[in-house]
């Protein structure tokens, strides 16, 4: 069998699938984004760049990017610092190390839906018997309506702690892997030179040696925050629909393209193209870190 035929025997099935389910949708979407495509995927009315102009001047679309920025501003640094702290702590102990690592990693087994359920109906339930309000009650504070309160916007506390709980273990594992790749002799040499274990070795050996891991973690966190959907949809959504605030890009896109007001694939596709272009820079960087 020639190499060409063998190659396509191995790669062909995947390549066809990639074409049909990745390249065709993207191409089709590009096409739809130039048409008026309400409730149809084979539109006839070409509108040029109007969908794009609409999206870029659409206040809700722009504020969805603002929502992402606020979310990322909290979740990226918090996850980074806490995951690194957990990794350093777990990496320094010997007794019960596997136990602690497993406990911190276990939330990865939960879906965002399950976590939303616990956060919304139990921990941050706005009534008096919710866990957070129970704890507040011990200090004599009044119950807080966590998920529906917009001033102050307590829902951010709900959403950020939820994601922290769910993703910290994953990034802790990445940091632990990075820590274990640092050659031990670097620390020994530093101790001989009089560096004290602790802050000095952390500052001058551990952190610089973790640079590749750190860059990868920040990029992964950004891309993940950009795609936030599940916890927003499940924590803030109610039987009366989704509130007008706190709509990250994918929530916005979901309600534009597939919402109850009818399917608008023209604007939805234009939105998807804009969002893809916006994140492409970050994912390109991420790709370079991975393929390095």
């Amino acid at each position, binding site marked *: 069998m020639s190499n060409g035929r063998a190659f396509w025997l191995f790669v062909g099935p*995947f390549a066809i699938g990639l074409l049909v389910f990745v390249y065709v949708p993207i191409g089709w979407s590009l096409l739809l984004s130039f048409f008026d495509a309400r409730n149809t995927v084979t539109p006839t009315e070409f509108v040029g760049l109007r969908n794009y102009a609409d999206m870029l001047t659409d206040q809700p679309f722009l504020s969805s990017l603002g929502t992402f920025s606020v979310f990322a501003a909290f979740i990226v640094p918090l996850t980074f610092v806490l995951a690194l702290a957990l990794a350093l702590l777990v990496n320094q102990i010997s007794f019960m190390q596997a136990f602690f690592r497993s406990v911190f990693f276990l939330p990865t087994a939960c879906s965002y839906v399950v976590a939303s359920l*616990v956060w919304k109906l139990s921990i941050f339930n706005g009534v008096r018997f919710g866990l957070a309000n129970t704890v507040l009650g011990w200090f004599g504070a009044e119950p807080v309506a966590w998920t529906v309160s917009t001033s102050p916007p307590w829902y951010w506390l709900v959403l950020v702690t939820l994601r922290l709980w769910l993703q910290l273990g994953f990034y802790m594992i990445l940091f632990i892997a990075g820590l274990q790749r640092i050659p031990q002799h670097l620390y020994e040499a530093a101790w001989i030179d009089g560096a004290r274990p602790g802050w000095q070795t952390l500052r001058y050996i551990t952190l610089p040696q973790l640079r590749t891991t750190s860059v990868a973690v920040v990029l992964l966190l950004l891309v993940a925050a950009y795609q936030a959907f599940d916890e927003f949809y499940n924590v803030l959504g109610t039987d009366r629909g989704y509130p007008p605030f706190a709509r990250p890009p994918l929530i916005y896109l979901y309600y534009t393209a597939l919402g109850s007001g009818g399917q608008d694939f023209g604007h939805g596709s234009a939105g998807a193209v804009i969002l893809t272009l916006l994140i492409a820079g970050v994912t390109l960087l991420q790709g370079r870190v*991975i393929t390095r």
Partner: protein
Amino acid sequence: MKAVRYLALSMAAVLFLIPFYLVLRNGLATEQEIAAPSWTFWPSEIHWENFAALFSNPAVPMVRSMLNSLVVAVLQTAGQLLLCGLAGYGLARIPYRYANVVLYFVVATLMIPAAVTFVPTFVVVSTLGWVSDLRGLVIPGLFSGFTTFLFRQYFLTFPGELEEAARIDGLGHWGTYWRVVVPNSRGFFAALGVITFVTSWNQFLWPLVIAQDQDAWTVQVALSTFLTAQSINVHELFLAAAVSIAPLVIVFVAMQRFLVRGVTETGIKG
């Protein structure tokens, strides 16, 4: 210093376990206990009959949705390992004039997060008539450029002597792959397989978009529907959550070594 470390870790561990505790506490209690004005640490008596109530509640398609999730996760895991493994091997090990062109098309998809393109994918899948259909749930998720790329990187480092030996024994590329390469790469397959299974079981946005009929719901869609729209008894909802986590907790306990490897392989690099 050591004591401080253990104290900090123990406090963090308690915080991390609270949500699991809440799922069990609420799932095995009665409505009155959950809504009691003062916090009850644990139901005064464990209400096992909640299980019977949950599984016999005609409004909650618990068995059906768990089964759907299982079928989707198993098929996606097996399908991805099969298709992406083959493609990764072909790209890494079979010299071919246009291999680099194909690789370029695979790597280019890494730039585009799959979730961002759910609208276009929905357009294609609905044109195929796969809405609320098992095919629509499973097939679009099989062709992961990322998994293929990870396989390629891994196979680049596969020891060439083993393949040489197989070649001398008269095996072609196909025979070499199945008889020598795959059996010697079980750890890598297990690592990516576990990650794929967990991701597939927990995915929400795509099943929400595509599984519009109740018969096609995965367990995540079912839970979400009762969380955001229709209401059922709170304790049944928490018990359903506990049931939905159970398969993954088993996977975690049994496969943790591969899972940790899978995280590091997919998180940063092979």
